């Protein structure tokens, strides 16, 4: 079976790499039973790090991150002539049920619909991909929802 590809932005990749590196450092400290000076570091979230007091949890998270890093696909901003088409990374304004909504299409790892970040593998994300302003796409379940595409934008980070 083909490995799953994780679409992530450059910014998110940096975060994942940093987290992986931090956890590697933390693991070395733990196995050496030294005082974890890393906990005093200002750029690390102590709430987050305290989660890894248990080495098995730390190792599980490291395995997770390692798997992601091995199967990562960076979301690249398409060339100007293709920026009129919805791809992963696009910011999209749509009209649904006569109301305006805004999404960003992201990979599954970054998805957070409460913040408007929709996974490219969700039914809504999937159906929007490849479409242009003016197109109307429908998500079919027992309820049919029509999304009218109003605006497509790609932002440089």
């Amino acid at each position: 079976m083909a490995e799953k590809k994780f679409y992530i932005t450059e910014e998110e990749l940096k975060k994942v790499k940093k987290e992986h590196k931090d956890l590697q450092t933390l693991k070395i400290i733990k196995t050496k039973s030294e005082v974890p000076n890393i906990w005093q570091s200002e750029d690390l979230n102590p709430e987050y790090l305290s989660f890894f007091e248990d080495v098995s949890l730390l190792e599980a998270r490291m395995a997770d991150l390692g798997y992601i890093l091995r199967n990562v696909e960076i979301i690249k901003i398409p060339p100007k002539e293709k920026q009129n088409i919805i791809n992963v990374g696009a910011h999209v304004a749509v009209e649904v049920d006569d109301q305006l909504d805004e999404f960003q299409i992201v990979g599954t790892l970054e998805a957070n619909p409460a913040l408007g970040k929709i996974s490219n593998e969700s039914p809504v994300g999937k159906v929007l991909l490849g479409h242009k302003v003016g197109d109307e796409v429908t998500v079919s379940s027992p309820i049919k929802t029509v999304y009218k595409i109003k605006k497509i934008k790609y932002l440089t980070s």
Partner: protein
Amino acid sequence: MKELLDFFTKIGKLKKMPRRGWVINQIKTPESIADHTFRATIVGWVLGKEKSGLNIEKLLKIALVHNLSKIYSGDITPYDSILAQSKKKIKEIIETWPKFSKAEREKICKKKYQREKKALEKLISKLSPSLKKEIKNLWLDYEKGLTPEGRFFNQADRMENFLQALEYWKKYKKPSLGPWQEWAKEFFDDHLLIKVKNVLERRFLNSKKEDDNEIRKLTDFLTEIGRLKDIKRKGIMFYGVKDPETTAEHTFRMTLLAWILGRIDKRLNIEKVIKISLVHDLCEVYVGDITPYDGLLPEDEKERYEFVRKWPRLLKKVKEKRYTQKFKKEKQSLEKLVKKLPQGLKKEIFNLWWDYEIRSSKEGIFVHQIDRAENLLEAFDCYRRDKSFPTKPWWQHAEEVIDNPIILKFLNEISKEELKLKS
């Protein structure tokens, strides 16, 4: 997947089944079996963690399945055999704990066991052989006390009953406490649980005697989360549903759904999946259920009627602001709830909740989506009962949130069922 949808639809019935013991004791709006199972599972986990050598994943699973048979067998109480003979004397009967001879007791237990076993077998008959075997073995473990986890949870389950009895007694002066205290004295033999029982008695009877501080903190926590049995899911109330599910009931079925769909994906850590599910709404203890419509509802009744029948559409900046506000409120509520817990447990609960909120692991991402799938299933259950219930907003939300292929397959089954009902 069709078999799983049928299974979870039946599980939903436990949200509507009041605990018979409380009905007999004439408690107003008593807890449901799902409510009880939610807190009993957390009682098992929190107290089980204090014991060394228990397999917590197994204990949690035993807790989640221990009452499934009641869907078909009904809730059988020790009073049933007496009540059948003398319904008129109900008030007299509940003043004492039923006493039976050894032979009578054995006969009653055997009959109850046979009835419940048959009911469980009927419930799981269409499931895959491996799932069927797993559920049945866990249930047997609870019934027969085959392993330390089964034996411990059997008592932890009764501790939840005992705590609920004390809470109802404080609120309604019912049930009569004497028989419960007498029973508890005979029933609990686990060293830790005896201590917990004593602390609970002193707490509810306002005794001035000093408590074991650590156990007092655990019992305070277990008492506080009991509020989730009374927190009604607001999202469903918008549509005139008179008896909406509680947060505890939602969490119970959601946890079971997370475990059983989660076991299909071999990469998931099921213990973590179950724990994240159990804690994901603990933050509601002090802030209640915050819905996506809060603060947006039009004042005009007609407009409001229309507004809640579709998913609220917002600009990205508004979404971000509302998300941050909700997150802050819920985080503060959770921090207040776990503040006094022993350090290890406090961190564990907080970090599991954090994982759910931030989706920092594959388990956190999975449970987040399962939450939405359970909401949709509940909306579909409401639609089955009343065809005017609008499932539209639930579908619209689920289609934005869910991308896990296993959960999407489950949704597809709900879709097929709904279309069948509509045709």
